[in-house]
């Protein structure tokens, strides 16, 4: 019998369950994360207007550069301040 050594991080079978999606946004705080892609602000500004019109609290965030993952302090700040996050992934 051939035995091979697993070349992966061995995390593959552990699928993560997604958090349950909220039924409605009323009463929640929504974070809008601008990833610093061109025109991402146009999309998020419009969402900001629409959500605010519905009385939903909106907080805005911005990654320093599109090229890298959000820094840990920013991720921690977002987790601590909002219930859901919306980000625009492409320009």
């Amino acid at each position, binding site marked *: 019998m051939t035995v*091979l*050594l*697993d070349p*992966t991080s061995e995390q593959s079978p552990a699928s993560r369950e997604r958090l349950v999606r909220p039924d409605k946004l009323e009463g929640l705080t929504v974070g809008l994360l601008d990833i610093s892609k061109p025109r991402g602000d146009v999309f998020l500004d419009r969402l900001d207007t629409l959500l605010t019109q519905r009385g939903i609290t909106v907080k805005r965030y911005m990654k320093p*550069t599109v*090229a*890298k*993952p959000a820094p840990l302090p920013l991720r921690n700040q977002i987790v601590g301040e909002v219930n859901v996050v919306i980000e625009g992934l492409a320009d």
Partner: protein
Amino acid sequence: MPAPQVTLPADGLIAVVKRDCPTCELTAPVLAELTAHGGLMVFTQDDPSFPETVPDRIDDLALNVSHTLKVEIVPTLIRRVDGREVDRTHGWDRAEWERVSGFQGIGAGLPAFRPGCGARNVEPGVIEDLLIRFEETGLASRRVELGEDEDEFEATFERGWSDGLPVVPPTQKRVLRMLTGTLRDPKEIVGFCPPNLAVLTVEKVAINAVMAGCKPDYLPVVLAAVEAALDPAFSMHGVLATTMFVGPVLVVNGPIRRQISMNARGNALGQGNRANATIGRALQLIIRNVGGGRPQEVDRATLGNPGKYTYCFAEDEEGSCWEPLSTDFGVARGVSAVTVFAGFGLQGVVDQKSRDPESLARSMAESLKAIHNVKLAPSCDALLVVCPEHERTFRNAGWSKARLLEELHRLCEIPGDQLVAGARGIAEGYGPSVVGTMRNKFRPGGLFIVRAGGGAGMFSGIIGGWSSGGAAGSLPVTREVKS
């Protein structure tokens, strides 16, 4: 299969010998003498009929006893008391054998001393089998048992471990052999591998290096390449996740290039050299398998580029009048190092007419201005690969690498009215504020030069980059190669 159980005598003498050892042959009469005294067990490693002088010799062709006793040289003579080894000698040394055996005057007709031979159980290829059989590999990775009728090559594809080409199945034996290429502990954590930031150990690097087709000698280069790629300044996550073309491009400097027979000359960036091909591939397999970075998942490349299978070459330092690329990053000449650059493809700079450095520099600059788009400046960093016949022109004129970089930077200044959106009939470009200004194709320090290639052909090359963001994008990173 459980590890073999080896039972040894609690008291007495043990000798381990093999036919293919002149010193063992020499000691055959001594073994007979000691057998006559009683209390000697003789284990033979290669030929059950040896030594003929000892009728009750024991076959250890499986080497289980030799391995358990940790024999390294034959003949080895061991004394055990109350289940423990109390004394040992190897080779033939009469005084030593008299001391260990407790009998004086043995081997009367023999020379006083003869060195022994290497034991079979520690031969390369054999020791790995024994470590596996005795479950002493120390390897921590999950064992994946293939089905009886499962093809081992197909199995690696089916499990998603391949970049699309066949990989060498990473058996325990191959991984143990690979790990002989480094002094580092297999358990040592090299870093956290993007995009999933999974723990990356030396052992996981070795497994993927096996799969890529590396020889053990290449492992230190692979480790240095991985360390460079994992440096946050290189931004491997971004290089992987971008929709743009790039992947890690590796340039190797220093004596290791020749030690592992890398190609820095004809077709240096092409196919055909095992070290060039497999070192770059190993890095990409690690990002895929350990980091979880797969195309159409976190790897969002629109087109990608063929160099994402492997992109690794050596600089021709011996043929160059310039300092090696690694010295640009603070590594002294003569020290082996790997530089990783976020790059793609190769855009040719064909110039067969320029015979003075000014003309050739202008030619190169015009080609450089076309990277990404002629309307974008700055657009990205770039690695200029200068061929020997082009370098000769600069060499004859006394141009240093710094001089060439300075001239290229000056020649890559572009008037903003050529870059404004709509200029030259191309919508791509910048807002009207650029009109009347000058912009450079490269950020300061964003152009790098390396010297490689065959002796014939006035064909240099440009490896385009990803961003011009410097520290906010991806910076080239150099790491020394350590054993």
